């Protein structure tokens, strides 16, 4: 197979995958009697057409950045973490415990504590499958999926039986105090000129951007990151070089779970102000699509999270204003994962002919210049 230039692999493959996924979704919309053009119009209008729409798009994107980064870190260690959903819900539990434990007076005091709670709980929920994988050889994929179901049952139990205040009907914790409420983008000086209405996007967005930088530093500028990537490329070679497999699996999964847990400061603390059932609403799964689409690079994850934020908010608007069910989002998500993660070889084969000529010319040029490369 022709080897593609790096930029084509990083940019062209995901873009073409997205186009293919969108095209199939359009056909499905036509088949179920909808109008794809109208659907796109509603989506763009609802997600990007107003600062209010952007407020939702950025809110969803913030969650997806965290879960996407989580999947990315595990992926570089050769671990496929499908448990982001459960880790995010447990992270929400950590946030709720921290926010309810003290009468917080200022959000900037509550936020670091809540972040620690979220990351610890998320990491712990990833830590058990990681330990079982490293020490007992369990299949990380199936174990993390099982932990999603166990997390859901655990949260239901805690909300219904333990954390629900007496007299309240819906399974949820009490509301957090006003001192634990994060400022939204509409509260920030400067940004409040753009976001004049209350939007769910909040300061967590900036923490998400910092997390992107942090993950980049971790993976490409630290010893642990090197070990993670080396182990992911070839575990036997990494072991031979003296890298401990237990350490890499544990570290990568703990960081991964911590990042997935961290998304809960966005939804639980920043938006809902209390812990609800199914708080993460599938964001943990979307992290898989975001990581694959973003080619497991923090910058790619950031861009892919924005795209999925748009799809998510646009999809919600579409479900509201057209006859197309909101589940189209799930289909699109599945198609993006399929094309970027499993059919990427097919996409490469599709675009390879366009690069064959360039590759040959390159080789000829080099040959004419002395052919040193050939040796």
């Amino acid at each position, binding site marked *: 197979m022709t080897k593609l230039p790096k930029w084509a692999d990083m940019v062209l493959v995901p873009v073409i995958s997205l186009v293919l996924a969108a095209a199939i979704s359009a056909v*499905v919309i036509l*088949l*179920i*009697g909808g109008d794809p053009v109208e659907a796109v119009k509603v989506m763009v209008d609802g997600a990007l057409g107003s600062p209010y729409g952007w407020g939702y798009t950025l809110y969803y994107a913030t969650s997806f950045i965290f879960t996407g980064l989580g999947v990315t870190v595990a992926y570089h260690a050769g671990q*496929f973490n*499908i448990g982001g959903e459960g880790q995010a819900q447990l992270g929400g539990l950590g946030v709720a415990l921290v926010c309810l434990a003290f009468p917080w007076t200022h959000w900037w005091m509550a936020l670091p504590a809540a972040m620690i709670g979220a990351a610890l709980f998320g990491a712990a929920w990833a830590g058990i*499958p990681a330990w*079982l994988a490293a020490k*007992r*050889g*369990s*299949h990380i*994929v*199936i*174990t993390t*999926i*099982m*932990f999603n*179901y*166990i997390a859901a*049952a*655990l949260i*239901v*139990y805690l909300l*219904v*039986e333990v954390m629900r205040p007496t007299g309240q009907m819906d399974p949820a914790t009490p509301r957090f105090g006003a001192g634990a409420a994060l400022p939204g983008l509409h509260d920030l000086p400067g940004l409040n000129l753009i976001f004049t209405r209350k939007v769910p996007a909040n300061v967590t967005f900036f923490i998400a951007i910092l997390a992107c930088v942090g993950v980049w530093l971790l993976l490409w500028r630290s010893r642990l990151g090197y070990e993670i990537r080396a182990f992911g490329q070839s575990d036997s070679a990494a072991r031979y070089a003296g890298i401990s497999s237990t350490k890499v699996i544990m570290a990568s999964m703990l960081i991964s779970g911590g990042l997935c847990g961290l998304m809960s400061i966005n939804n639980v603390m920043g938006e809902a102000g209390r812990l609800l059932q199914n708080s993460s609403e599938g964001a943990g*799964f979307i992290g*898989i699509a975001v990581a*694959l689409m973003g080619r497991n690079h923090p910058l790619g994850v950031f861009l892919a999270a924005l795209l999925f934020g748009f799809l998510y908010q646009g999809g919600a608007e579409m479900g509201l204003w057209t006859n*197309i*069910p909101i*589940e*189209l*989002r*799930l*289909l*699109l*998500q*599945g*198609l993006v*994962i*399929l094309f970027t*993660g*499993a*059919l*990427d*070889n*097919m996409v490469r*084969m599709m675009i390879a002919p366009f690069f064959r000529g360039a590759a040959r010319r390159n080789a000829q040029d080099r040959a004419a210049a002395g052919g040193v490369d050939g040796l």
Partner: protein
Amino acid sequence: MDYETLMQLLASTLRLGTPLLFACLAGLFSERAGIFDIGLEGKMLMAAMASAAVAALTGSAWLGLMAGIYAAFVMAILHGIASITFRGNQLISGVALNFIASGATVLIAQAMFQQGGRTPALSGTARFSAIRLPYAEQIGAIPGLGPFYERVLSGQSILVYIALACVPLTWWVLYRTRFGLRLRAVGENPESVDTAGISVVRLRYIALVITGVLCGLAGTYMATALQAGFGREMTAGRGYIALAALIFAKWRPWQALWATMLFGFLQALALRPDVIEGVLHLSIPVPALDALPYILTVIVLAGFVGKAIGPRAGGQPYVKER
């Protein structure tokens, strides 16, 4: 717990274990051929929707079964295209197909029936009804095993008996036919099969077709026998539990039967908190019972009950030497 309750529990075990058994045998064929299939869940879901939709439209459970098998077959072929032909990541392909199934089933059901992504409730010939085995009453009168025959084995739908029959059939195919030998070989050492002049790709596709058919039976059973119609996410992780049962059973058919029935028993118990309370004299919260099959799956996977080693070539795409 009295005898009557035990019989009820066991009958419920057989009912709930059947979709797991179909799915487990489905996974057995693909994994023995060296293809990981996380997508059992999605195939079952698609089959459940397709079978319920067709059964609702035609009033025939058998036509529903055809549709269910076809839907799961299409999903299996998609998995084959991604993971065999294009040598993609089998795990990611399976996960992707599960999401596609989650979305597509609701979209299609909503477009067809406008009932919030469900199919209409099935009744009469649109469902697989209970079959009374011959002499159930006479044999039931015999103390000991008689009531087991009458109340547990008898009175199940035809699909339950098909599932049970699939166990010896799978054993026979796997261990007593030339095809089975090649299938096992292609999962352990595809190079040797290729050297013998047999197409690895073809064998793996055949295995996936069998997987599709069995998942089709599993999904159809869920929608037309166990329940009366399709509802969103109705498979509720059964595809993954079946995978765990497969590992528990160490990829062997008879053990798969016992493993799936064990998980079926746990699910049956989760539906009867009163029985647990009566036997253990302590009340266990319902969410804990719901989580029990998943927790057991984790324990099984961790090898605390015997070490499981899967087919050696599992998960790796086959690249012919050049």
